[in-house]
């Protein structure tokens, strides 16, 4: 058991190192560098950077050095707990990401709560009352939820909100509260703005989970132990919730590995469309601008979180499912 955990930990460290090399390499794959991208973006908005200024920028940002040296510099900084400067933002990377982290987590957690709160009961209902009218209805809605891309839904919701309800377009706060200090009124404002992004972000996951829950539970319901439990006269709700549902929950637990990075990045495109101040659009813009320290750190962070998440879900599975726990021994 301990050896298993230690082995997993060592592998995790190695994986994280590999991710750091990969993420740095990925950012250097496209042609040009931060300065070319900066010149192009200034030109696109009718402004100019001169050749002398470009040379100065390259030198100061260390972009004129070979990629191996740049990587070594980045690694050296990171070992000191410094993730470098976000070039476009003119601030340390940790500050830039830190600013957006709290709101990102709030939105993502809201989306996850929505997903689970809707998916679990519906999934159980659909399995138990298979081929009932409501099961068909949920299945129908579920497939629509799966089929519509999130950004499309976001656009439609946003347009309807604007055209028919006079809602604010995008964002997490109304203009009055956008820069107000935190207060109960501002929290309430955030709460009012939260459902739309949470639902849009959560809907496709919900549909998916309903399907998974339904099919897993159906598999379990057919098994003899369920029949035995019924024959023994257990109340129906206990028959279902206590045993088959617990087994059917396994896939939920194993998705936690992917949940952690998701909580941090949010969905990039949906956040972009809804203009949410989360880490997702930050990553996208950093990649476009070839802001290598910022993009590299976010990609690395997501990688690390996936590794950590997978690790946690392995442990959780061991805890939840005696078969795995006992199988190890």
């Amino acid at each position: 058991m301990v050896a298993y955990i230690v082995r997993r930990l060592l592998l995790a460290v190695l994986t994280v190192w590999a991710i750091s090399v990969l993420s740095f390499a990925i950012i250097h794959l496209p042609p040009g560098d931060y300065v070319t991208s900066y010149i192009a973006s200034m030109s696109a908005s009718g402004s100019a950077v001169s050749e002398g200024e470009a040379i100065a920028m390259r030198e100061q940002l260390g972009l004129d050095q070979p990629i191996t040296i740049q990587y070594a510099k980045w690694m050296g900084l990171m070992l000191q707990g410094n993730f470098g400067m976000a070039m476009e933002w003119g601030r340390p990377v940790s500050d830039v990401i830190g600013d957006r982290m709290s709101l990102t987590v709030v939105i993502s957690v809201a989306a996850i709560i929505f997903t689970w709160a809707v998916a679990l009961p519906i999934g159980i209902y659909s399995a138990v009352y298979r081929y009932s009218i409501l099961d068909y209805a949920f299945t129908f809605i579920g497939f629509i939820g799966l089929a519509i891309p999130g950004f499309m839904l976001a656009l439609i919701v946003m347009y309807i909100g604007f055209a028919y309800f006079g809602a604010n377009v995008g964002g997490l706060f109304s203009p009055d509260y956008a820069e107000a200090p935190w207060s109960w009124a501002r929290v309430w404002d955030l709460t009012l703005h939260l459902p739309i992004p949470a639902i849009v972000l959560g809907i496709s996951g919900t549909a998916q989970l309903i399907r998974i829950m339904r099919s897993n539970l159906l598999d379990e319901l057919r098994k003899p132990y369920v029949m035995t439990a019924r024959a023994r006269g257990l109340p129906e709700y206990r028959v279902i919730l206590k045993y088959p549902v617990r087994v059917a929950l396994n896939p939920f637990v194993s998705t936690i590995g992917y949940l952690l990075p998701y909580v941090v990045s949010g969905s990039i495109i949906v956040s972009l469309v809804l203009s949410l101040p989360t880490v997702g659009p930050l990553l996208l813009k950093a990649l476009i601008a070839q802001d290598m320290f910022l993009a590299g750190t976010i990609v690395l962070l997501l990688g690390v979180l996936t590794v950590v998440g997978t690790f946690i879900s392995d442990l959780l599975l061991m805890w939840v499912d005696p078969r795995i726990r006992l199988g190890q021994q």
Partner: protein
Amino acid sequence: MKLMRAVRVLASLGLAGAFAMGSVGAAAQTAAPAGAPKIGSSLIGKLQGPEIIRDAKAFPKTFKEAPTLAALVKDGKLPAVDKRLPEPSQLFVVKPLDQIGKYGGNWRRAFTGPADHENGNRIVSADKILTFDYTGTRIMPSLARDWKVSDDGKTTTIYLRKGAKWSDGKPLTADDFIFWYEDIYLNKNIVPTPFFEFQIDGKPGTMRKIDDYTVAFEFAEPYAFFVYQLAGSTAIGAGLATRGAFQNWGGAYAPAHYLKQFLPKYSSEEAANKKAKDLGFDNWVSLLRNRYSWALNPELPVMTPWKTVSPINTPTWAMERNPYFWGVDTAGNQLPYIDRITMSLAENAEVANLRAIAGEYDIQERHMHLSKLPVFLENQKKGNYTVKLDPGLNGADVALHVGMAYDADPEIGKLLRNKDFRHALALGIDRDQLNEAFWLGVGTAGSVAPAPDSVYSPGAEWNKKWGVLDLRQSNELLDKVGLTKKDPEGYRLRPDGKGRVRLEMVTVGGQFVPYTQVGEMIKQQWKKIGIDVDIKELERNLAFTRDNNNENQIITWANDGSEVLFLFPRHALPVDAAEAHMGIAFARWYASKGQSGKKPDDPEMLRAFDLFRSAFGMKEEDRVKAGKELWKIIVEQTWSIGTVGQSPAFMGVRIVKNNMGNVPDRQTNAQHVRTPYSSQPITFYFK
């Protein structure tokens, strides 16, 4: 990365698609009956603007201030208004467009993130040394109250406003200029190569303090044009706020009393670096770069009318009035009228457009798309705003820049360098069709030459030269070039027998103008002259990088800024190695005076280079003549093929709430006047 790109393409398709659906519906409703005036023509008003008063006799003698500041004065937290303003004879006095305004209000706008600093820079550009009047033609004082160019053109002297103060109340003097020159500009750790604008013929200029309020810029050769560099949007003249936000050290002056603490010269290398490390920066230069930007650093003393209170790297970029701003209106009210500017973050331009339609912005011209004009118009009443269009002065919003140094396929390279071939391509484009389809008819079809009323325009006939549809002449020219054989589908064959003449046109997606769609329409049009072209949409950065390797045969890009040829030549001539779509190799050759790059074979290009180089030392009159001559060469040689321009596509669709006062019907939309600065946003007010 591929995945990312695919994701982005998908995203942009989705966004554009959904809104296009809305637009088409709206267009159908508002479409005018045939023969009626074009949708946009009634929206282009008369060019208007506030006047900068230069006669000190007309200056006001008593002064008033905003109620918020008066309260601070009463509490003893701020000196009285006449103590904050410069001496009465030294004021910056503006006559508002319509009337004296009222104090107060919060101007709401959109911005798209920390790279969008020009959004604010262009509003607060009053801290430029000199500027242009609202027509964009005459030089006007701004930070400096006056200037003088010596008879030999070698010295340009500027006179500062006595008593003008930084936003923290410290006086602005010639020492702030010398500090910038000696401690920032001449420090090789900060500025490794001298600015192009601050040298003539490769010889760097110098700066000298005459007295506390007089500064001279001196050059080894005549450089009469330097005064335009001070007035234009250049590294030397665009002001501390703008160049600081670019993080590029320009601006020609800086607050010495504040910035000295970050320089090793005034402490030590170790102390300066330690300070930087403590704040999370790599070294003192990167800390200084951050502290130098008004958009990032609210503590930086500035000379701008508003100063940042919530920096640009947060979800709201907010500015408040600078209590020490050195300008007043003709009634003696200290400017600006508006208390505060709040820009809220739109993660993408579509959201900004939708919010503008909802009436959430007070004045917004940046990021507003011409393609959404019908939707803007449809919602005017509901959003309580008016749409105003500001056409640009440049000849082409989509110019087909020909890669004159392209050589990857020598046969194609040879064709591209053949003037007749370029003329044939230019004559094969139906610009009216493009104008109707993508500019809603509000653009002007023609060559790359600037608007006929701009300074260097060689005359209206040059806007049409090689800028009309003439299939007969086009086909004749192609036959003359030797492309006489055609394949069964009617496309002309290469002389070397390797199949069709197949050009490649690089377009960039997601810009103000739909380059790719325009390219696709031109592809259809060129079918009639038997020329096949592949439209290749590339990510912007990739397109520019290919430019830098001379790999693009043709790239579509605007020629904005080219109307002020000598201030911003890069979209008209390949002379600037930072961006040269018509052959970076030639630009490097020009900029290095033959040390690197490649010498052009084209004698006309060499003639243009010589004329261009010599113009900087010429007197006004000769330079204008040279500019006109240059435009004749550029149009005749057609190194760039013009399509449709002089349109509002480039930041010229302005959404103005109906309660805003002193806002011109039409403003000059150009880079050198720093639109909207030339309309003096300090005089805008809430009615």
